[in-house]
């Protein structure tokens, strides 16, 4: 199941706080879809430490979408939708 989280309107470090909080609620088969204004390089090592895998792609309403799921959770990984945005969204 998808858990959507839009952090694009938040001031740092709130996006990171909200993401870490949301990861705690993920069940088996769930993935988190984060909508972010930029690529959050700093949080990736935390995902790794917490046992999560992730996939980032440009696009979506905020500029970037990051999908996060538990490592080895094949069911969650299979549910992630294919990219609807092949090109980075142009800035308005």
């Amino acid at each position: 199941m998808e858990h959507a989280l839009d952090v694009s309107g938040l001031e740092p470090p709130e996006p990171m706080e909200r993401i870490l909080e949301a990861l705690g609620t993920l069940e088996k088969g769930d993935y988190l879809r984060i909508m972010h204004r930029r690529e959050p390089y700093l949080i990736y090592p935390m995902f790794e430490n917490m046992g999560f895998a992730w996939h980032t792609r440009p696009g979506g309403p905020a500029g970037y979408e990051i999908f996060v799921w538990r490592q080895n959770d094949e069911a969650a990984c299979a549910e992630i939708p294919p990219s609807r945005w092949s090109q980075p969204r142009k800035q308005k």
Partner: protein
Amino acid sequence: MQVNRSSLSLDQAPPISVPFRFFLTAPVFGLLAALLLLIYGPEALSTRWAPATLALTHLITLGFLGLIMCGAMMQMLPVLAGSPVPSVEWVTAVVHLLLSIGVLALAAGFLLGANALLHLALAALGGGFLVFIAAVAIALKRIQAQNATINGMRLAVLALFITVMLGLTVGAGFSGMISLGLLIPLTDVHLGWGLLGWVGLLVISVAYQVVPMFQLTPEYPARLTRLLAWALFGALMIWAPLYLAWGSGGLPRLAPDVWMLAPAAAYGLFAGVTLWLQQNRRRRVSDITLLFWRTGMVAIAVCLLIWLWGLIPAEAYRPAWPLLLGVWLLFGMAVSVVNGMLYKIVPFLAWFHLQSRQVALMSMGKVKVPNMKELIPDRLAQRQLYAHLATLILLTLAVFWPGFLARIAGLSLGVSCILLLLNMLQATRRYRQVNQELSEFAASR
């Protein structure tokens, strides 16, 4: 599905000591500049060529601005672009040491008129900056994604390289190491590249990220971000030879001055757009960094007015004109923005490193990581903002009444730098405390 999991090193962010070493040293150099103004008083504001003025200027540009900008850049490359600076701890140790020695030797060399100290300064500053530029250039080259911030940073580093080369040349001429004509126009070109190139371009490229991110404004217009840094860099490339041609008698003064209208207008546009974006921010709460940024952007407008005033031929030769422009470019624009950014960067990094360690230790609920406002409370940052604004006003007035106000302005600058240092130390102390608690938690498991 391509998963990015293994493509990243766990050491994405450099150790906290990398940026903090620069951020904690910079206010000390600011304090030395204040002491100098207190000791030398009116002499430091009589003409831009006075030894005390040269020492003061370089304590601020190299010691305060330079150190913070170098430290921030090594931190920002991995955060904003995912590209860490190679061998960052080694590079930090060398760059920090050489730049610190260089600034001290340069200031002392100017004050004492000691060429040996100036030569030491040239070697240390040249070496320090070249190591920094090489390391940062490698990190910038590795970045695959293209965006306005990265391109702007590349141009800013190129401008820094040109500034350093010109500075070394002028310094060698000034200290009698080489015989050099055009010393005065070359000095102006050196500071043109330093302030409008390195400082200005870095401020602009960082603004594209941090203004929308921290101040929750709309994005900068895409056309502006795509073109502005290139236009400014190109304009400086043409202005510099025009200015030198005037200096050697080959062109009338009007030629470089008219050309300078282009970069001046570009900076005015940047300041106007930034103020407009800040006016339209989504969360309308007062914020100290925002107020520092606004001061910086208003200062750009003030600089434009001062510069236009200097186009009146009789006025340009008054010693007050370049001093006033210098005060507003350095303290009004550059120091305001750089100082203001510290109130976001420092608490964020302290919070981030503690949070990362907490995640690694799985100590959530056991050790409380303070939030950013607890690391540096707003009232402390606000107090320093007021001291900074008082310094800016007093320095402006001291240009006209140096006998009466130069030392008072020095005192105000000293207070501002001490408050900034105390605020940085407050965040560092709080970080150490909580880090210690995390260590104790790790040991107790």
